[in-house]
């Protein structure tokens, strides 16, 4: 019997087609609070809370897009929906603030906002991080369009980025922000707050087969690798933030789906002396918390990577596994000189990320391999930055992404690694630009010349996100901006 505990009650999954999303499954059960606004994880109207392993507490209530995740992947897990938070006659504190402050107009996006807001309300360290977050935010303010800003944190520690994956077409957001910033602490008898102190349900070895399609959640990496070796065409799913879009928008129905997001072998994390090792099935949100700012380039990247709702599901292995030229982690990891550990029944091998991408959505990864972990060598370059060019600051796809890791010694560029996204069929290193920098003085003249080289890197194209001319211009401008941002820090005169 496969079941999900929804709002405290067990509900069955038997006979449910394996590609059914959590959202459709909930709605088919009469829980119509969660809505479908876009079916691709962009609007958040489907947001629900899932009991997930926490960093600071055994369980953290984690908001996810129910439209992307297969219901089967939550076998044995616990969900809370807007209906489970409160009733119209007894509103939850989050619902109360949203209601009285005019946080809803048409109300369609509202249950999703409420769930995303509740996740932040229950974030165990919400108050504790306020001062630090504000300082970080103020420091970032000069970085203009990047990252967080001071006004994006409430006096109650509420991080507005918790709502970056929720769209409202009616209110203009001001009353929703007011509601978020007015929230207090959970009451002493709050059952969802109390739930955080015991572990979340363990993953359940799931085997579902409906109408010829299979969903499997093996317990060990060995089982997964055996399946990959013997069942070509199997679809691996972790956060399903990409696979879910393929199912919903492009009608893909892979005959075998294998869930790997809870495999302990893929969730290892080690910050060592010589390297950082990050398990491929750790979510972006988990990595952000585990690193705690110790890799500044990634710390700058995280708030710009999709939305909190997506980061709560999306894994770093998934972002690299799709081989997309516009993923946001590849440029950053290229600049960090990262490597991947690929695993199969044949054993493990280490591949430099710079060699990994071979063509449009093509990689060195063999069909029977999966990414086990990502390795970032230490020490880190002292000067780093992540520049994302997009139409919208929260939750957009890059037109161009540029990541820098540069070291200047005695006024001369000792090393420079520049990762690019969005300007070719693959993410790539800006080798010519790196060559134009290394060994030369870190001056305006060097940078000006190198920026012209950078503007010529890649083969950017025209599309609905940007023109090729703008993409090229942004490459060149990016280096000028990086230089301007690091003038003061390095004490270099222009």
């Amino acid at each position, binding site marked *: 019997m496969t079941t999900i505990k929804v709002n405290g009650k067990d509900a069955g999954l038997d006979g449910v087609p394996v590609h059914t999303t959590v959202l459709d499954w909930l709605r088919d059960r009469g829980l119509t609070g969660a809505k479908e606004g876009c079916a691709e994880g962009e609007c958040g109207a489907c947001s629900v809370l899932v009991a997930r392993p926490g960093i600071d507490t055994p369980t953290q209530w984690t908001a996810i897009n129910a439209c992307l995740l297969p219901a089967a992947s939550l076998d044995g897990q616990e969900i809370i929906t807007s209906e489970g938070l409160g009733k119209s006659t007894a509103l939850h504190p989050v619902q109360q603030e*949203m209601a009285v402050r005019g946080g809803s107009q048409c109300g369609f996006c509202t249950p999703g906002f409420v769930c995303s807001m509740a996740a932040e309300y229950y974030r165990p360290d919400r108050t504790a991080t306020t001062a630090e977050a504000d300082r970080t935010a103020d420091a970032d303010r000069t970085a*203009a*369009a990047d990252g967080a800003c001071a006004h994006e944190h409430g006096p109650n520690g509420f991080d507005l980025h918790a709502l970056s994956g929720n769209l409202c077409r009616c209110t203009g957001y001001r009353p929703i922000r007011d509601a978020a910033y007015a929230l207090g602490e959970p009451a002493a008898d709050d059952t969802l707050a109390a739930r955080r102190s015991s572990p979340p349900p363990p993953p359940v070895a799931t085997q579902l087969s409906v109408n010829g399609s299979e969903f499997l959640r093996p317990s060990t990496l060995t089982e997964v690798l055996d399946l990959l070796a013997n069942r070509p065409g199997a679809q691996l799913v972790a956060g399903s933030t990409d696979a879910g879009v393929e199912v919903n928008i492009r009608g893909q129905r892979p005959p075998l789906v294998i869930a790997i997001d809870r495999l302990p072998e893929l969730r290892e994390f080690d910050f060592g002396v010589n390297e950082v090792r990050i398990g491929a099935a750790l979510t972006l949100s988990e990595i952000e918390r585990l690193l705690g700012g110790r890799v500044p380039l990634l710390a700058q990247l995280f708030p710009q990577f999709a939305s909190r709702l997506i980061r709560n599901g999306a894994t770093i292995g998934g972002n690299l596994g799709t081989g997309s030229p516009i993923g946001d982690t590849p440029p950053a990891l290229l600049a960090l000189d990262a490597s991947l550990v690929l695993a199969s029944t044949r054993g493990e091998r280490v591949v430099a990320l710079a060699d990994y991408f071979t063509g449009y959505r093509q990689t060195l990864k063999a069909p029977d391999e999966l990414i086990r972990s990502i390795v970032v060598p230490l020490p880190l370059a002292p000067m780093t930055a992540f520049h994302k060019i997009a139409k919208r600051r929260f939750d957009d796809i890059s037109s161009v992404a540029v990541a820098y890791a540069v070291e200047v010694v005695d006024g001369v560029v000792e090393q420079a690694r520049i990762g690019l996204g969005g300007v070719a069929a693959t993410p790539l290193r800006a080798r010519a630009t790196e060559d134009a920098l290394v060994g030369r003085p870190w001056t305006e003249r060097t940078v000006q010349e190198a920026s012209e080289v950078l503007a010529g890197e890649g083969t950017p194209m025209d599309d609905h996100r940007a023109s090729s001319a703008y993409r090229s211009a942004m490459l060149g401008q990016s280096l000028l901006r990086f230089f301007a941002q690091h003038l003061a820090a390095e004490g270099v005169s222009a």
Partner: protein
Amino acid sequence: MSSLSLRPENSVVGLPLPHESAALHVTGEALYTDDLVIRTHDVLHAWPVQSPHAHARILDLRVKPAYDVPGVVRVLTSEDVPGVNDAGVKHDEPLFPSEAMFHGHAICWVLGETLEAARLGALAVEVEYEELPSLVTVREAIAAGNFQGIGRHLESGDVEAALASAPHVFEGEFEFAGQEHFYLETNSALALIDEGGQIFVQSSTQHPSETQEIIAHVLGVANHAVTVQCLRMGGGFGGKEMQPHGFAAIAALGATLTGRPVRLRLNRTQDVTMTGKRHGFHSSWRVGFDDDGHLVALDATLTADGGWSLDLSEPVLARAMCHIDNGYSIPNVRVDGRIAKTNKTSQTAFRGFGGPQGMLVIEDILGRCAPKLGYDAMELRRRNFYQPLDSTPYGMPVRHAERLEACWSEVLETADVERRKVEIEEFNASHPHLKRAIAMTPVKFGISFNLTAFNQAGALVHVYKDGSVLINHGGTEMGQGLHTKMLQVAATSLGIPLSRVRLAPTRTDKVPNTSATAASSGADLNGAAIKNACEQIRTRLEQVAGGKLGIGAHDVRFADGVVRGLTFDSPTLSWEEVVHAAYFQRVQLWAAGFYRTEGLHWDANAMRGEPFKYFAYGVAASEVEVDGFTGSYTLRQVDIVHDVGDSLSPLIDIGQIEGGFVQGAGWLTLEDLRWDESTGPNRGRLATQAASTYKLPSFSEMPEVFNVRLLEKAHEDGAVYGSKAVGEPPLMLAFSVREALRQAAAAFGPAGTSVDLGCPATPEAVYWALDKARACSASPSTGGA
């Protein structure tokens, strides 16, 4: 003061109440059309077969393979239509076309036991197309002379003479994009066959009466055989004024043919690729100024990109032409308007309904010309404001023109604009890579449907024996808070607490022949109709109460559920006692209310008359910061003073102002409709057809500081309880954002740089604008910025 606008003391109208459904919204208990499916048995699901070509003749349509797909129950084609194969009111929108007119056009519909079966069935349908030449851009249509509907001409004064003698004449072109509504709830309908063949359709529609009429004419039945109900919409913004009709008709047709309930809910891709949007426009213009910066003449040609059929393009164009003056007095005006026919979705109503497009043209002109004239753009705008006793180019007096100046000066003062301008100059001087700017723009927007006949409304008010009240009216709730206001109007009008009044969903069998909830008129029209019904009942109850209190009926007062005489020591009765007594005296305790807006007249051919009951006014100041490396920007502060008359419901009105503003800013700066204009295989395909590619404003676009004030002492005589419409006008306050971006881009160049800015002003568009301005600075003669 008219009796309609007179507001009693301590009334329920005017209280800042949350949305009447707020508690249902936040818990997810509020039901939308598609939430009813799980509560309905034996439902069939519908999926369209969409054209992969921008323009193609359908040579053959083979539906049989669909029936081989398990779970497929029925394929609906033109042969199934018992009535008229038409989904519009202009008879130019076949429900099942023989010619695909745009990429994504629905050719036929498949009904399945599950959505998955219907989807697979649609994939199995075989359509043979003969591709035909297509026009995708408005420029292509202009070049080909491909227009539709009636072109219009608006003229006052002598434009040629004025331009000939004007000391400063400029000319230009400006093409700007439309906007996808992106209501969070996509179009949906659920149709059932009732007892006796009656058709009952739940529809997410702003215009239940017209949805009913279209269903009836497609099915070939009388209107009385069809009932349409709208519980609420998850957003409308004009996108559900005309667009829902065809989808409701498909569901109703399917239900009629199969005898089973049929659910049609578009997914986002289908909704964006099939339904109409805000019209993009092309404009070309000549403008003349005198030496004092006064506008003396404007000659403009507006071409609306109508898409494949007329839909509401004609009235949208008329409103654009009637708003090209915005808040500015232009003594000599000539505007020619026409509607291009292109192979795109049929563009439709969208908040502002052409008004924003007309006003954008003049605001763009002023923004471009101010540096050329040597004026600060703020000053140029202010000195051209309409003054009391002025009239518009179509001959309507600009009543309350002084409110433009009142709003403007209040914004200047409360937002400390002059001081901030100085600070901005200092900031810009010390920041080579960042520039800030502040811009102020006004709004003057005409309220009423341009077509006089639509300015009518009905209501039904029931008082039950226990004193509880149920109201019903012809307006629909799409999030704008109409129902909240209507509850307040009923409670005020009957002199009872709000808790005694309940509102029932909008249905065509309760109030017939309604107008669309559109043109910002929902509260004006339906509020007056409700008030009328309540007053009929109250007048009857005054007789009853007068008898019991031993006083004349005219001396009876109703307030907060207590009925009493005029005198301080009057005895009192409870509302319930009076209602109870009235029932036993066999007094009618329910009434139908009606309202029509008086004093309107409009000659659509001559483009002259007084089409509007009044104008709504507002002013916004927006401050932006632009990054010179990328063109990206932040909206630092917005200050608004807006005229809503005496507000019926201030929390609701402020919500409308803020939401309208951000939606307008989205249109002007972010939202980017991109059709494939190439000659490749995807020609005519909308490239931005998803939330991942069509970006709405998110939290990152909301102003960091957002101050909204309602203009005080703004009583509107002749409107319900002295209030004004608020739905559309605030959207146009967002011109201030675009103008601030223009000025910030100009700040990268030498003083007096005139900047042409693309629309939407995306970071890329702003980058090219500032890059051009910066290039002016780089020339040796002008020195550094």
